[in-house]
């Protein structure tokens, strides 16, 4: 089970603003999904290593050679707001 307070906390972590309606619905829906997911708790997995990569691979290394980066104007082309050749954002302070 997950309650309204937990939903609010997780929404803050996820940088999501949720409406009152969404909060209620999310608590209900997430609880349902978590109930299903928690069935993996029944398995004995103490001796099992977690999977990090599904296909056996060796570390992939490439030559550490500089390549031309995206030109600045191309990197900034889709930005909502540009200031002094950079991405502009509101102040972190209120």
């Amino acid at each position, binding site marked *: 089970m997950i309650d309204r307070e937990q939903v609010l906390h997780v929404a803050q*972590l996820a940088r999501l603003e949720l409406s009152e309606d969404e909060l209620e619905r999310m608590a209900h829906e997430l609880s349902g999904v978590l109930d*299903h997911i928690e069935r993996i*708790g029944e*398995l004995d997995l103490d001796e099992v*290593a*977690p999977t990090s990569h599904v296909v056996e691979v060796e570390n992939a290394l490439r030559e550490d050679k500089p390549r031309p980066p995206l030109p600045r104007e191309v990197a900034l082309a889709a930005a*909502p707001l540009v200031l002094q050749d950079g991405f502009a954002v*509101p102040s*972190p302070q209120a």
Partner: protein
Amino acid sequence: MSDPIALSAAEAASRVHAGALDPAELFDAYQSRAAADELNAFTWVAEEPPTATAAMAEGPLGGVPLAVKDLFCTRGVPSQAGSRILQGYEPPYTATAVERLEQAGAPLLGKTNQDEFAMGSSNENSGYGPVLNPWDRGRVPGGSSGGSAAAVAAGLAPWALGTDTGGSIRQPASLCGIVGLKPTYGAVSRYGMIAFASSLDQAGPLTRNVTDAALILGQMVGPRDRCDSTSLEFPESIELPTATRLDGAAIGVPEELSGEGIEDGVLRAFEETLHIAERLGATVKRCRLPHAPHALSAYYVLAPAEASSNLARYDGVRYGLREEAETLLEMYTRTRRDGFGAEVKRRIMLGTYALSSGYYEAYYGRAQRVRTKIVEDFRAAFEDFDLVACPTSPTVAFELGARTGDPLAMYMSDVLTVPMSLAGVPALSLPNGMSDGLPTGFQLAGPPFSENRLLDVAFALEQAIDFDAVPARA
């Protein structure tokens, strides 16, 4: 001149190579169909025919135009991943998979609609409206590559590119009566594929038949892409399939994926295909994947966890939607509130919860261990069998709206495709019959890099099944 739309992609490419079909004429024929799309399968269609290149006349893909799921970045062309948060976004580069296909002679026809960020099994989660199933417009085409599947099934595109994280190529292929192939994890570069769950995402083709799938896959795999550290060099070239017999092939049928919860009509078609396989010389036996019943639970921890991290980048700073606000934090939270749809929010919440302090080991850690058991289950099955087979989807295409109110019911749509995704093994869905007037799908999976075998077996079955139903074409 016969109707070029009636040709399979491979047939069309052969005619172009023989000088019997003009690639510009072929493009026009599909372009006018795609532009008149009534299924909402496309979110963007090329207005101008592509500049003729030598690759289009002589390249292996013979100028046969390609529909591309909107999850792939295409330079200067809207790439919105089915999300309002990326409305109008035009990336500065093209995904490696698309680039390789363009270089092999397949020009971009259009971008196809999808569930937002590939999260969904019905295409109803698109920020640009649902896609309709060409067999019955009151039903879903499946998802998340539903636009690609509907476009190919309805003859609006000769073939299409999709992506599969937990079934997003195979399930819509099944629901639309076409072929869909999810390659081995790492076989196709993920560079430029907008990320959902990076340890699972894989690009693959949706095609009218198995030969077309082999032809296009052959140009997607190859040397590893230095821009994707998880991409792998494919150990052999992909051959066009030729098998007519299956003598010596051992096919395992996992008990866990071929009984409970599957519609009668789907099971009947499945059993019939198994009989055909036996008639062609294969041995078919029951097998076990003991941890498969836990695959869906593990998947719905791992995929949302990875998604919650991958989708942190949509914050209104560098691209896409921004909601203005007084402070930076408010700008983030409002942008994400307005830009993401309900399912994406649900997955971000689920993933953030599973990764949050104190819960990591109980959810993500355990799910990664379950994943190990599933990988081991498949490995053990492939010691006794060349391939395993089960239905692709437990049901035929369902009605629009039937599962939107119940997230868990929607997630169950993936119950037969998720195990292969977790194991990273290649899997293909082949149309194998009809139930209640709607197509069913037969799923085959093999060990990593067994794509050639998979395609060969699927080809032999395809010829014997002789599935020739097509939805009414406009």
